[in-house]
């Protein structure tokens, strides 16, 4: 009864089941709720930590995960691969020069040789026939068949025979096609095929060999190893220098910051690639001379182990490439410096170094990780550029860049020598770039939600 009247008093109500709502109310419902009941009421969402959240987002990013898979694969390829292959990167395999990354079986090769021989034979037989024919023709016409005429015919036949081997009839490729000879994966030299036939286990030249008979796969593996090592070391070097410089500059502020930033501006306006090229050019002979100058100091041994090429490259990186990182870190530090917890730490008497380590760096770690990760591909890029120009990693150590240069001379015949290192290099840089992008998307708090 009373319910009906109430309904009229609240005309704008939108709850569809208003009657039910009001029907089964007991007096108890209007007693005040206890603290526990209230506490139970709120179902707190589980708070997800920054890293867990980032990892969840990264895992969802298919492209980044594929890129990570490729990076891991390339890593194994570069660091574990050479152990599995019985060839060294500097090993000249005699009799296995200029192998393609495919081979024909021994029987097929014999069939091919026989066929080619048969065809060229028939061509040479024709010469005598032609001369006899010409002689007969000349005599029939009452003309004299001179030695000169004979020579002309012979020369013509020779040219014809030579071109014949280039023409479809005698071209090995065409004959192979006609005979139905198929290519088989991986390169083997004739000698190796024989040994294989004899029951020996012979490791194939998966990507073929170069003009000295060096296995290209092993060389590519070492090249990838050099590239990755250079990329990662350079990135770490940049990280250490840039982070330290940026953190100090941002933390100290004032005049120190002004001077330090002026210096950063200066380095910033230097054309890096040019100067890196210059440093790499000049440092290599200097360091080589230093190593060869005799005497034994630990420094010398160190330079010797890494090789003057790599060291000069690292120096170039260390001198020039840290500025971006230092700017990012400085910006972060300046922003974080205003935050209360830093003031609090200061008030508690924490030292400057401690504040940087404990409070500032952990808070800009996301940006640091992303920048470092994206530094790797650019370092690999630069290494290959320098090696390509012949001032980076150089013989005997292979590098993807220098392999590409070496391949240029025979690039039309042995295209794979150019393609293999180029593809691996590009895939490597691509994977690092894509993974870095994914990491940025995952760690960037601006994209959160």
């Amino acid at each position, binding site marked *: 009864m009373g319910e009906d009247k109430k309904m009229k008093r609240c005309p704008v109500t939108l709850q569809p089941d208003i009657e039910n709502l009001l029907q089964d109310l007991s007096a108890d419902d209007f007693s005040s709720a206890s603290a526990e009941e209230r506490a139970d009421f709120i179902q707190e969402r589980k708070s997800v930590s920054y890293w867990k959240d980032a990892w969840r987002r990264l895992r969802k990013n298919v492209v980044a995960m594929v890129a990570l898979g490729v990076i891991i694969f390339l890593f194994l390829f570069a660091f574990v691969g050479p152990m599995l292959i019985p060839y060294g990167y500097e090993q000249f395999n005699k009799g296995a020069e200029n192998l393609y990354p495919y081979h024909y079986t021994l029987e097929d090769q014999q069939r091919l040789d026989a066929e080619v021989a048969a065809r060229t034979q028939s061509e040479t037989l024709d010469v005598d026939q032609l001369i006899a024919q010409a002689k007969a023709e000349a005599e029939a016409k009452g003309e004299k068949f001179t030695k000169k005429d004979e020579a002309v015919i012979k020369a013509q036949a020779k040219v014809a025979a030579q071109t014949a081997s280039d023409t479809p009839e005698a071209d090995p490729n065409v004959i192979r096609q006609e005979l139905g000879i198929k290519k088989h994966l991986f390169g083997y030299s004739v000698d190796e095929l024989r040994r294989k036939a004899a029951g020996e286990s012979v490791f194939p030249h998966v990507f073929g060999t170069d003009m000295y008979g060096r296995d290209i796969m092993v060389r590519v593996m070492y090249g990838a190893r050099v590239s990755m090592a250079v990329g990662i070391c350079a990135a770490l070097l940049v990280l250490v220098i840039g982070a330290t410089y940026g953190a100090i500059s941002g933390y100290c502020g004032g005049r120190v910051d002004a001077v330090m930033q002026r210096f950063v501006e200066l380095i910033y306006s*230097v054309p890096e690639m040019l100067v890196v090229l210059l440093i790499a050019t000049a440092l290599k002979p200097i360091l080589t001379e230093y190593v060869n100058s005799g005497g034994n100091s630990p420094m010398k041994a160190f330079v010797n182990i890494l090789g003057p090429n790599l060291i000069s490259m690292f120096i170039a990186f260390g001198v020039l490439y840290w500025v971006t990182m230092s700017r990012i870190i400085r910006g972060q530090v300046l922003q974080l410096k205003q935050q209360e917890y830093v003031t609090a730490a200061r008030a508690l008497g924490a030292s400057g170094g401690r504040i940087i380590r404990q409070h500032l760096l952990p808070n800009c770690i996301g940006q640091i990780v992303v920048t470092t990760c994206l530094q790797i591909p650019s370092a690999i890029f630069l290494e290959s550029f320098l090696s390509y120009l012949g001032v980076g990693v150089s013989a005997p150590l292979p590098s993807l860049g220098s392999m590409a240069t070496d391949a240029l001379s025979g690039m039309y015949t042995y295209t794979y020598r150019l393609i293999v290192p180029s593809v691996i290099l*590009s895939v490597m840089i691509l994977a690092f*770039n894509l993974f870095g992008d994914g990491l940025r998307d995952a760690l960037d708090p601006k994209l959160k939600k």
Partner: protein
Amino acid sequence: MSKYFAKRIGMALVTIFLVTCLTFLLMNAVPGSPWLSEKSPSEATLAALNAKYGLDKPVHIQLMKYLGNLLKGDFGVSLKMQKNRAVTSIIAEMFPVSARIGALALTWAVLVGVPLGCLAAFKRGKFTDSVLRVICTLGISMPSFVVASVLLVAFAGGLAVLKIFPTIFDPALGWRSYVLPCFSLGFYPMCYTARQTRSAMLDSLNQEYIKTARAKGLKNVKIIFKHALRNALIPVITYLGPQVAFTLCGGFVVESVFSIPGLGRYFVQSIQNRDYPVIMGTTIFLATFIILMNVVVDLLYKVADPRINLTKGGE
């Protein structure tokens, strides 16, 4: 603003000076004199040569002399590749070729990269965006020598029958011989520009003034092209400076691959031949060029952004 001009140019001059000194000192520290590598000349000849080129004096005096000569426009003479020819005249002959190819490459890179970046931004998350993203990431992952060699193989091998574009540079063929070098040189900057434009555009589309424009009832086309693009292009200008440097350095490789008689190829050859005066001269020249281009781009940026007051003072 004029104060800014002055500061920026002063900074550039300091940088040029430092790069010059660095170049000189590095080249000077390289062991062995440039004419030692071939047949070794007699002591007397060596001394005479050193005296002639001033190599017997202390380093700082040599540096001062070199700097003085630079100011007079004297970059020294080539010691090996074109013996006794002035480096200045080599640069004057070869740089225009490099500059033309670089400028063409950069032009197409920007003209194609900016629209592609916008397209990717509008289609964010869609198929087009993904495809463009992959292409552009691939583009910034392929060193120019990879692009150049792939083109070389393609156009000298498989597509050679078409005879469209020559793989060996020949100015007599006109525009056609520029196509492949410019493409390989501009591919990286194009992809880079597209990526930067995309992110700048997305950034711009997320700004509040876009909300205002929508609330005003503007059409989508107008919002994108008038309000978002103009703002997105301003940061894209800043990336032009580094791209100029990158394109010039990429030219070293591309000119070698396509046998272009430009400064880049000559520079690489001079490095391989250890022709130090040429290396020094070219480095200093290119560094100066790049630094000055950076200043120009920087000023362009300031002009494009009305928030920076061009008349003196400001707020």
